[in-house]
C-alpha cells in the first residue's frame, strides 16, 4: 500500500536534512505507528505522505503509484485527522461536516451516523466554538472518515480524550482495520501504540532506528524472566526467576505451592523502556 525508499527531506533555509533516508513498507490493512519525540521527523513524514510537502528526495509509492503522480483525486482515497482539531467555529458540528463532505468527489457517509459512532449525536446542532477539546477530537475523526478513505492518517488520535472515548476511538480504528483499511498513526503515546499498532517505527533525528511489531520488540529486547511478589509473614518480598528451566526451579515451585504469591509479571521491556534503550531519548 505504501512503499517508501530513501526518503530525504530538508526544509528551505535549514542546514540539515530533517529526514535522512527513511525506508519502510506498510501493507494494506495494517495499523502502523510512528513513534518519536517532538522534532524527530514524524510530522514531516506524515506531511509528505499526505502530499503537503512535495520537495522530497527518494521514492514514495502509494497505491501502486508514485505520490508525485497522484492528482487531487488522491484526497478521495485518504483521510487525515491532524493533531489539532480545527473547524469553522461559527458553524455547528453538522454544518462543518456538511461543508467538508461537499468537497469530496466520492460517496460519503451520513454525518449524523458518524456523529453517533463517536457519541456526539446530541451535539450536531451545537456550534463548534462551544465544544470541548475531547469533543473536537471526536469530530475531527468523523471528518477524516466521512468519505470512507482507504488510508487513514491520524495524528495523536486519543489526545485529550477520557478513557471511555479513547476506547471508542481505538475500537473504531480496529474496526476499520478489519475492513481492510490501512491506518498510519503518529503519536507520543506508547500505550496507544502497544494496544492497536501492528508495527511501530521509532523515529529519532530523522532516522528510523527500529521497526517491528510491539510484542516482538518487547519480547526480543526484554528480560526472559518473571518477577514474583509474595508474603513472608507480614513482609512483602520480591524475587526474579529466569524463564529458562523455571519448571524445575525448586524455589519458584515452592512459592507457587505455598500460595503466598500476590503478583507474577513477565519482565518483557515496555515500549517506553525500549525506546530509551534504542534511541537514548525519551518521548517528550
Amino acid at each position: 500500500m505504501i512503499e517508501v525508499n530513501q526518503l530525504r527531506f530538508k526544509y528551505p533555509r535549514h542546514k540539515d536534512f530533517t529526514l535522512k533516508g527513511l525506508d519502510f513498507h506498510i501493507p494494506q490493512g495494517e495499523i502502523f505507528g510512528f513513534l518519536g519525540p517532538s522534532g524527530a521527523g514524524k510530522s514531516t513524514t506524515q506531511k509528505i505522505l499526505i502530499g503537503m510537502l512535495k520537495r522530497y528526495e527518494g521514492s514514495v509509492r502509494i497505491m501502486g503509484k508514485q505520490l508525485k503522480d497522484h492528482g487531487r483525486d488522491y484526497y478521495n482515497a485518504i483521510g487525515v485527522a491532524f493533531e489539532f482539531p480545527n473547524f469553522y467555529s461559527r458553524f455547528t458540528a453538522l454544518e462543518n461536516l456538511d461543508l467538508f463532505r461537499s468537497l469530496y468527489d466520492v460517496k460519503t457517509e451520513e454525518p449524523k451516523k458518524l456523529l453517533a459512532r463517536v457519541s456526539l449525536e446530541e451535539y450536531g446542532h451545537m456550534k463548534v466554538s462551544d465544544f470541548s477539546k475531547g469533543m473536537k477530537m471526536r469530530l475531527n475523526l468523523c471528518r477524516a472518515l466521512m468519505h470512507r478513505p482507504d488510508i487513514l492518517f491520524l495524528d495523536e488520535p486519543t489526545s485529550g480524550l477520557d478513557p471511555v472515548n479513547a476506547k471508542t476511538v481505538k475500537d473504531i480504528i480496529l474496526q476499520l482495520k478489519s475492513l481492510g483499511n490501512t491506518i498510519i498513526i503518529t503519536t507520543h503515546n506508547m500505550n496507544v501504540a502497544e494496544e492497536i499498532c501492528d508495527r511501530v517505527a521509532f523515529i529519532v533525528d530523522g532516522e528510523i532506528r527500529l521497526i517491528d511489531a510491539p510484542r516482538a520488540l518487547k519480547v526480543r529486547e526484554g528480560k526472559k524472566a518473571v518477577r514474583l511478589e509474595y508474603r513472608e509473614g507480614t513482609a512483602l518480598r520480591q524475587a526474579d526467576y529466569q524463564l529458562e528451566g523455571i519448571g524445575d526451579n525448586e524455589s519458584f515451585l515452592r512459592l507457587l505451592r505455598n500460595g503466598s504469591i500476590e503478583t507474577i509479571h513477565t519482565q518483557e521491556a515496555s515500549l517506553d523502556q525500549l525506546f530509551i534503550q534504542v534511541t537514548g531519548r525519551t518521548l517528550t
Partner: protein
Amino acid sequence: MNNKAITLRPRLPYSGVRRFFSSWRQDMKLQFRHHFYSAYLLISIAYIILLRMLPDTYQAKLNVLLTFSDPSMLGFFFIGGLILLEKGQHIHDNLFVTPHSPASYIWSKTISLTCLSLISSLFIHISTFGIHQRIGAFIAGVTLTAVFFTLVGLGVAVRCHTINGFFFSSVVYSTILVLPVLEILQVYTSKLFLLFPATGSLLLLTSVFEPISGADSVYAVSSLLIWIGIAFYWAYSSLQSNILGDAKGGRDA
C-alpha cells in the same frame, strides 16, 4: 482482513462542478454567518439616503464613485477578513487535504464576494435610478471590478498574519490601484492611467450615464480581463507560497 481493491474509487458524475458550486454556497453561508450581508444592507440603505438627498446633477458622479470605491471594492477588504479568519482558525490544512483545489478555493471566494458586491451595488443603483437600458454596462463594471479587487485582496491577505498587517498593506495597494479616480475628480490626468485596471472600471460605470464608444467598451472590458488574469496568477502564487507552505518546502498541487 478484508482484502479490498486499492485503486482510486470512481468519482461521482460532474464532481468538479458540483464541488465548486457547493464551495461557493458554503462561502456565502459563512459570509452570511459573519453578518457581511446584514452589514452591507445597512451601508447600502445609508448610501441610498445620501444619494437621494443630493441634487440630480451630482447623483450620477457620486453613484459612480460610491459604487467603485465601496460595493465594488468591498471584496478587497472582506476577503482579507475571511482569509485571516481561516488562518486564525487553522482551517487551511484541513481544506487542502480534500480534493478542493487552490484555484477552486480562490474562485469560490471571489465569486461569492462578487455576488455581495453586485447585490449591494444594484440595490443602491436601482433604488436611485431605477432599471434602465444601460444596466448591463453597470453590471459588467461592478462584476469585473469586484473580481479584480477581491483577487488582489486575497493575494495581500495570504501574505499577512494579522488584521492590522492586512489593513496597513491594503492601504498601500488600494491607494495605488485607485489613482485613476483623480481623473474623475478632475485633480490630475495622465495617459499612464490607461494602464490601470481602475480606468476600465470607471469607464464602464460612467458609461451608464454618459454612453461611450464601442472601442472604449472593448478597451475597458479587455483591460479588466487582462488585469483579472494577472491578479489571479498573483493570488494563486501567493496562496501556494504562503498558505500551502511552498516557502516551507510545501506542496505544488
